[in-house]
């Protein structure tokens, strides 16, 4: 099936939805991670925060990867 330009808008909406799924994951799983009662401004908080942030970065990179793949596939199937 040849894809038309409306697919570009659909990709944007799908990416927004995936972004929300990622945020839900961050908010309900990652943000609730508690390590031995470490609270800000404990000297170990940086380590704890780095873990949270690293998980966010991995999710963001995966999100961008999906975006690129969708754009590439659209390009090859819209010709």
């Amino acid at each position, binding site marked *: 099936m040849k894809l038309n*330009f409306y697919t570009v*808008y659909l990709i*944007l909406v799908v*990416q*927004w939805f995936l*972004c929300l799924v990622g945020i839900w994951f961050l*908010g309900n799983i990652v943000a609730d991670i508690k390590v031995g009662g470490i609270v800000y401004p404990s000297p170990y*908080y940086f380590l704890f925060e780095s873990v949270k942030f690293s998980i966010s970065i991995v999710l963001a990179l995966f999100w961008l990867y999906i975006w*690129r793949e969708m754009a590439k596939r659209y*390009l090859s199937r819209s010709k």
Partner: protein
Amino acid sequence: MIRITVLVSLFCISLILGLILTKFFREIAIKYGKMGVDIHKIEKPLIPEMGGTSVFFTLLVMNYLCLYFRFLTLEYFLGFTFTIIIVAIIGFIDDVYKLKGVYKPLLLGLLAGLPLIYFGTYNPSIKMPFIEGFFIPIIYPFLIPLVIAVTSNSFNMLDPFNGTMTTGTVIISVTLLIISYLMGNIISTVYLAVFLGAVLGLYYYNRYPSKVFTGNIGSLTIGATVGIIAIQGRMEFIVLVAILPYIMNSFLILSSIKGLKEKSEIKERPTKLLDDGFLEASTNPNAPLTVARLFLSGEKLTELQVIRRITLLFVISSLLAIFTFVMMR
């Protein structure tokens, strides 16, 4: 909550100043021969460049006015002002001397966010849907330069056709202004009213067919301002959703050309102009992947048709930003 009459007054003053200054800088560009070729038209007209300088000066004057009338605190004023001064200087140097691909984002990343960090005009708890606040007090300051570099460069990259960047910015600014007003956030509401006026003044001359180009100074300043509003106004996530088309475009370009390169360093163009005045997507696999190339894939379009399709993308991203805001309430 700030009164609507105050916002309308700020917007009107900013718009008038924006219109006058854009006309002024257009004439200055003509006088000094700072002209650029409009490559998407057969007749290849010469258009005055650096019209976006008006946005920078309008924001400077209007922000001082906001400080004078106590809509802004001194810290917020200084953080904002020094950041856009740094960004505008980088944009000016790039316009005049053409910085290499890697230097522009590097300079923006290293320098532009420093005033915001120094004056401490940020809150390290990011507001998001489903979350009370994503609290990253140690890492957040390090992210500020990255945010300014990403927003300013993204806006700079989605400016290939007449008025695409300014049209998108106007749509996004209106959306963010409404959201910010409903949030009761005085600082970002004031910034956005002023910003919308300044950008509309530029848009009047930059819209299709362009009478002036924004230049790097304009697009970088506009992008950085959106980044500052996101940080100082605590609207990081909503702004991210609103500017998704910019992020989409810049990410696709960077991933397809594999690194930071200046326009002149990229041999293949994503689109080509045909003899009948229509535009077509490049079939070369090495050409950069852009939003315009996606829209032109498989069909021939006029420049105006591509602009309309890109504009609809901004309308959709703005609607998504409103949905996101509703989910956060």
